[in-house]
């Protein structure tokens, strides 16, 4: 039996008078894909921001193995092997595609300011660049290595962001709505990519609206609603949970007659 790798314990976060996340706990085991779903404004991205250290939780605790993440700044969290992508793609717009991926290698580099100034990091630099190039080839963007990142179409920008996150060789990968802006073919390819990532012993946390993707790749689903955990379980259990259906589809459940709340 695998022990939990990431544990979120009674997390709480409010902005002014608005409670974004209330008493949410969940666990993720090694090489598990955990999907976090819920209507817009349910607190999914806030949860991600707390795990990646961008927002400190008001209360509760996040542990990665034996490390507490909730009191660490984002760069320390990243250096422990947590990588992420963003709902609104956050690429380095002033850099080329290849340079964006080399930034993913940042936590594995050693050359500081002084060693760089003295020109002692050339070998490391070559290694970083070739490792980044390999990542780019894997996502099929190698021929665009020297283009500026913002010149890519949105689908490829998401792929690039994923390549950058993977270049970090993370233990936990947080994907925030990775299919937003992707077409059907790209979404199918993304599902395959996620399965491959999982096969490489990486735990994946996935915020996603595309239920087909969630049902096909997730091992465990956590449902949030109004900042609270509504349900969790295997994808099939969750799909048939009446509370989940109510939150998603409105009061009286009809087959697909969706009137999702809060839109």
């Amino acid at each position, binding site marked *: 039996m695998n022990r939990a790798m990431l544990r979120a314990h009674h997390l709480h976060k409010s902005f002014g008078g608005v409670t974004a996340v209330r008493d949410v706990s969940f666990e993720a085991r090694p090489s598990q894909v955990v999907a976090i779903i819920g209507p817009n404004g349910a607190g999914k991205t806030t949860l991600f921001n707390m795990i990646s250290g961008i927002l400190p939780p008001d209360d509760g605790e996040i542990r990665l193995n034996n490390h507490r993440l909730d009191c660490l700044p984002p760069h320390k969290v990243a250096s422990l092997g947590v990588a*992420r992508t*963003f709902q609104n793609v956050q690429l380095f717009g002033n850099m080329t595609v290849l340079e964006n991926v080399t930034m993913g290698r940042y936590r594995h580099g050693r050359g500081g300011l002084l060693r*760089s*100034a003295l020109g002692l*990091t050339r070998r490391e630099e070559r290694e970083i*660049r070739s490792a980044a190039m390999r990542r780019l080839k894997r996502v099929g963007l190698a021929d665009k290595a020297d*283009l500026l990142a913002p010149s890519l179409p949105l689908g490829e920008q998401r792929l690039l962001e994923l390549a950058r996150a993977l270049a970090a060789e993370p233990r936990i990968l947080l994907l925030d709505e990775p299919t937003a802006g992707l077409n059907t073919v790209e979404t199918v390819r993304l599902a395959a990519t996620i399965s491959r990532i999982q096969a490489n012993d990486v735990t994946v946390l996935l915020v996603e609206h595309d239920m087909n993707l969630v049902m096909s790749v997730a091992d465990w689903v956590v449902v949030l609603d109004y900042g609270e955990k509504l349900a969790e379980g295997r994808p099939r259990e969750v799909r048939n949970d009446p509370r989940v259906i109510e939150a998603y589809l409105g009061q009286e459940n009809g087959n697909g007659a969706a009137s999702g709340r809060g839109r």
Partner: protein
Amino acid sequence: MADLTTDLTHRLPARYWRLGLFVLLLALLPVFVRSSYLLTIMIFIGLHTILTAGLCLLMGYAGQVSLGHAAFYGLGAYASAIATARYGLSPWLGLLLSMALTGGVALVIAWPIFKLKGHYLAMATLGFGYIIYIFFTEAASLTGGPSGLTGVPYLSIAGWAFDRDVRYYYLVWGVAAMVLMASLNIVNSRVGRALRAIHGSEVAAQSVGVNTARLKAQVFVISAVYAGLAGSLYAHYLTFVNPSPFGFHFSVMLVVMASVGGVATVWGAPFGAAMVTLLTEALRAVVPRLLDRASGEYEIIAFGVLLMLVMIFMPQGVVQGLTEVYTRWRRGRPVAARPAGKALLSLRRWLRVKG
């Protein structure tokens, strides 16, 4: 596309090659230029290049403005002068001491100052500059007060002193070349990329593990060490120091040099330093002939106009601006990817044409 990829993988030699060409041109200059006056100006351009290189890193890569950099310059000069003229230490030791002192001071003030952002940070550095300036004029027992310190020895190696302009020219530009090389190395390294990444997206930079606050503070320290080095070289060249060159005015001039040359590339430093220094000298010669009883304040107007023109027509600075103009003229199309790198690339061609 293929040639760009090659350039990316073989970028290190190309960058040294460019610098080598630059150094060669400078090394040949004294063969043609014999005037002591012109060599003195060139020495000052060299000192200003060292200072501006640090400021370019700070402004262009760490995204911070220092309005007190003349104070670090002064600290370096005074540390060298006091160590050698008062305590009789070796000038080389004095040089190392001034770099250590300025670096140490920058490290100490970086901690509170870098909690501030934007204009507040600039104001804090301005305040720091004034405090140091007042220290130079008031702590007379140590600094000699407004009249300064005399009797600073020349730097020398085994009895061979850097006492003539030609010798000092080679010393200063040798150091300036090393500073430029160090800066180019930084810019093209993992940390240099991280600094650019902070401009692109600070939150993404942090999410890949960049400690943004620490990196910015480190660049601040490096730029202060450069300034200390330049200050020490200044003291051993003139052999005396007084407070007047290290005031607010010169801090602003340094920001002008960096902005005119362009902060997005390290090459902005020598070009910005040269333009502003030469213009200062030209104005000093021309203005009194045009206007009676004219003094320093007219220079300010000229620099204000220069800065405005550069910001309007070449907001990236003269180096980048001119290379873009040249590339467009040469190829008949605008510059696209990798602006900084491309600018350097075309600068090479540009330098080749000049040489």
